[in-house]
């Protein structure tokens, strides 16, 4: 489902296989386990994390087929994504998404929760599909997108008009950072970015703490779901 490798001081988390990398509990658990390993490594040295994927899709979003109309499955799936994204937000190292294919709905959220997004220019698009499939978007998705994207009209076009946005357009609109031709080149660019950031020799816990400060409202929205028992476990 996903692999974790290390190139120098840069970790590369890859969503493997040719499919849509739909975010179901199995894949989300695998991602979380990889994040735990990165977290441990980040305590002893300066590292960076790249997340990328094989094939035509970065991720096409939640595994709606798996969840079906089963509320327990739906709740499990969404709570696992919230947990994974919270982990990304608190991760004590810079994070870069190398988006080599389509990123839709929750799949785009997974990409955008990274500090930097590099995306393939010649194929693929970002698509918040929820409006087209009549799904209400959760408040924490909005909070995350608005935290990262400055232009109110770009956010509106993405969330309210369900635009299919190519990498080039996404850079223009300030949705992502860099558009690169070719899948391998996209990953290379992300790795180079990661290496540059590692050379700054930042203290991981300080980096993570500062990022949490920047994304505080997003974490608040995420945690609103999980306060029913007051348990932090």
């Amino acid at each position: 489902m996903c692999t974790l490798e290390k190139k120098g001081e840069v970790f590369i988390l890859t969503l493997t296989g040719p499919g849509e990398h739909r975010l179901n509990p199995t894949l989300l658990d695998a991602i979380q386990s990889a994040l735990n390993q990165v977290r441990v490594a980040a305590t002893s040295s300066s590292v960076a994390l790249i997340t990328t994927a094989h094939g035509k899709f970065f991720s096409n979003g939640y595994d709606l087929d798996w969840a079906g109309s089963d509320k327990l499955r739906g709740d499990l799936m969404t709570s696992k994504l919230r947990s994974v994204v919270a982990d990304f937000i608190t991760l004590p190292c810079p994070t870069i998404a190398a988006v080599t294919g389509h990123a839709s709905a929750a799949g785009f959220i997974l990409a955008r929760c990274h500090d930097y997004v590099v995306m393939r220019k010649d194929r693929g698009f970002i698509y918040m599909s929820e409006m087209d499939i009549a799904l209400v978007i959760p408040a924490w998705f909005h909070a995350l997108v608005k935290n990262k994207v400055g232009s109110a009209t770009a956010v509106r076009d993405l969330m309210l008009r369900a635009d299919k946005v190519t990498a080039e357009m996404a850079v223009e609109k300030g949705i992502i950072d860099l558009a690169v031709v070719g899948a391998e080149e996209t990953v290379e660019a992300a790795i180079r970015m990661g290496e540059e950031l590692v050379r700054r020799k930042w203290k991981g816990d300080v980096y993570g703490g500062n990022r949490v400060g920047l994304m505080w409202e997003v974490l608040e929205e995420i945690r609103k779901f999980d306060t029913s028992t007051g348990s932090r476990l």
Partner: protein
Amino acid sequence: MCTLEKRGNIFFLTLTGAGDKDDDEHRLGLPVISSLLSSLADVASQSTRGSVLITTARGKFFSNGFDLAWAQSAGPSSARHRLGQMVVASKPVVAAFLSLPMPTIAALPGLLLALGHDYVTMRGDRGVLYMSEVDLGLPLPDYFAAAFRAKIGSNSARKNVLLRGEEAVRMGIVESAHESAEVAVQMAEKLGERKWKGDVYAEIRMSLYPELCAVLGLAKVVPTAKL
């Protein structure tokens, strides 16, 4: 007052000025407000997949949403009070637009009503009057500031009096600064083709502007995502 007509999937809400006299019909006072609210309720009840609303203004309708002449004609101290009245009275209208279950396009120069819409087009040769010009010593009402922050962003605040069409496009406030009627209709047709579910559309829109909705008293209509 205002008139409502329907052509295909598109609702046309037109604000019209009555005569050229200083009467109730061409200022944003209670008669126009209740006419607007009732029209918007009609539109909401007739909404189907693919519905879109275009709001335009015609005739003697004041260019900026507020009747400044009326405000100032009563003398400087009463002007403040009258402006205040209009601002307060407009709040439920903006709330009605924000919760409307379909995409909305404003093809009119009034900033206040325009901000309540999803998309704005305006005439290239006309401008939009910013509240900073008409500062009669009133603090900006809460929903103005919230609407600015939600739709424009505080770092785009301008001190200029008049924002002409091209500038507004550059600032990202309006979609287009051309002859607004056709552009708005084209935009509406494109949006209508998506055949979105109106209630979901409204919920996503309100979720996008949570602070503005709270200030407008729409917080009770809490959008709940299934996922």
